[in-house]
């Protein structure tokens, strides 16, 4: 009796999934959590993208725990989803669960962060090139100041974190060969507004009340927003007396650009799911295997890019 029920249930289930798969693809998404506004925006955009493409998205929030992510992937495999999106919380320890997915022939796409597993265990990784982001910011500054002398201060991210290291490297790459631009002070603001404000105050004190500073490069927008307040309170005009370029493109920096307080930002797009779904759709259509790394665009936005419209477009994404 029990056996019979089990068989029947299984049969119904299999029939059910098969029927659904024909109509609609199901994709499981294991998200890290919602530790930052950017992460929340990524979740919102992934849901939006899935809805637009008619994909059934199974969402799982891991609340910063790898064991939750592994459990989520196992349950996706058990459900027999058509693909899995994974934003891994850490880089290590994914081999066995990725093998399980590979055995079930479910393609896995990594979002935003990478893992140290063998490349054949996942289909592709979608992410931003952090060094390139720094280069875009640096190139903008090089173009903006031309041949004039320019003393730059830098607000670094959390000391030792990979975004801080890569964004510093990229910026320096772009400045190479432009001896008129010099980074005179560099200090960590811990990626926070208050950190950016406090450190900027000390930069202003140390550099002749800010008269000797021509530009500020901040590793993220939040620090730039804090620094803008410090510059304002020192009686200078941010965006004019001191040029400001930062990275991330959060909504508030567009507001600052619309007010003329900030000059440029480089977008770290939260739309990682778009390229991932593109790759999946190509794969489903004719089996095209994508490259192992899909780099998202690092778009530069300046005051001439209608910052108010960009602000309106972003403010409801959950930043």
């Amino acid at each position, binding site marked *: 009796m029990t056996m019979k029920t089990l068989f029947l249930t299984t049969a119904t289930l299999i029939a059910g999934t098969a029927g659904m798969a024909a109509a609609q693809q199901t994709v499981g998404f294991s998200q890290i959590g919602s530790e930052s506004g950017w992460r929340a925006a990524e979740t919102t955009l992934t849901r939006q993208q899935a809805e637009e493409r008619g994909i059934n998205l199974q969402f799982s929030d891991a609340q910063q725990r790898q064991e939750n992510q592994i459990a989520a992937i196992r349950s996706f495999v058990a459900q027999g989803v058509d693909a899995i999106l994974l934003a891994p919380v850490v880089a290590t320890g994914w081999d066995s669960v990725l093998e399980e997915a590979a055995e079930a022939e479910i393609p896995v796409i990594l979002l935003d962060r990478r893992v140290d597993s063998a490349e054949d265990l996942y289909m592709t990784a979608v992410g931003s090139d952090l060094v390139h982001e720094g280069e875009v910011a640096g190139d903008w500054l090089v173009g903006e100041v031309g041949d004039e002398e320019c003393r730059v201060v830098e607000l670094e991210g959390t*000391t030792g974190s990979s975004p801080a290291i890569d964004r510093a490297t990229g910026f320096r790459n772009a400045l190479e060969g432009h001896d008129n631009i010099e980074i005179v002070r560099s200090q960590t603001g811990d990626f*926070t507004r208050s950190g950016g404000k406090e450190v900027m105050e000390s930069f202003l004190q140390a550099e002749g009340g800010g008269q000797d500073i021509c530009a500020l490069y901040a590793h993220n927008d939040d620090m730039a927003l804090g620094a803008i307040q410090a510059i304002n309170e020192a009686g200078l005009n941010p965006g004019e007396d001191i040029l400001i370029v930062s990275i991330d493109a959060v909504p508030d920096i567009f507001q600052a650009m619309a007010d003329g307080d900030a000059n440029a930002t480089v977008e770290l797009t939260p739309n990682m799911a778009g390229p991932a779904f593109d790759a999946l759709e190509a794969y489903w259509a004719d089996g095209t295997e994508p490259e192992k790394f899909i780099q998202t665009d690092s778009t530069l936005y300046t005051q001439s890019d209608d910052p108010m419209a960009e602000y309106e477009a972003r403010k409801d994404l959950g930043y």
Partner: protein
Amino acid sequence: MMPRTLSRILPQALTLLAVVALVSAVFPGFLDVDLVNGRLVGPAVDVVKRGAPVALLAVGMTLVIATRGIDLSVGTVMAITGAVAAWTIGAGWGWGGAVALALAAGLAAGLWNGCLVAVIGIQPIVATLILMTAGRGIAQLITEGRILTFNDAAFAWFGSGSLLGVPVPAVLWLLTAILVAQLMRRTALGLLVEAVGINRRASALAGVNARVLLIAVYMASGLCAALAGIVATADIRGADANNAGLWLELDAILAVVIGGNSLMGGRFSVAASVLGALIIQTIDTGILLAGFPSEYNLVIKAALVLVILVLQSPNLGAHWHFLRSQMRRRAEPAPAASPQGPGAQPRTTPAEEARR
């Protein structure tokens, strides 16, 4: 009364002077103060302004530590009160409502901690750890996980405004410290707090309502944390639930310890704790001004704090006397070393004397 207070805070004052001298050596313009647009501007002014959150927390923390407790939740309470303030302004209640609700939230947090410690009897470090970890979640619930920004000039005044040229945060911590210190010393309150800290049972038997006193002390700490939260939130014109006050409870405890207060409770000095907060902030600002690579920040801070604490250690005085007597004994052998000699008798150090 006054000379005793002065001699109590003398080591901290000297330490502060030494740190200021050190920073001035690295950054010569440290003590320069200019008047720009009717407000004082300069690195030293930044120190008294930036030091506000830790100084405010240290005032409350001093009282808690004097009762032999500890309040680990103050950094988180800053985040909660900041979130409450930003939310209130967003809801259109103006700066008055924001300040009132934020202070109320701080008092509520203190009441919670106080009840856990005094009524239920949980150890203070555990009781306040609960709010420390859970509180950031509460703050994130209020801000819905984003940085709640606002544009209320009146409320922003608490963070970046100035009163007669002096930054408002500096005025706030100075007033709070003076008020609390006077309240403690002009009334018997300070004595009662110390009594509870030294022996709660004995003071309860002597008629002190230790339970109410403990709750009141944690509420005072919550109130100070709320003020610090208001300052931090007004400063960046936004409530950052993830980062506001992060790890500041540790800086506040450090300030109290540098202030020469014993973690075992008992005698305390609010003035010395506040000086401790200023010492920490002078080190922080000095490091920023010196322009070292950021990898060195924490190492330099740790090294300086270590030197300060070692110099203040009561044992060091004893060791110093011991070493000196040893050297004297070596210089003039056998006959001079009598059992009544300075080395043979354990001597009380100035620090121990001060504690009595």
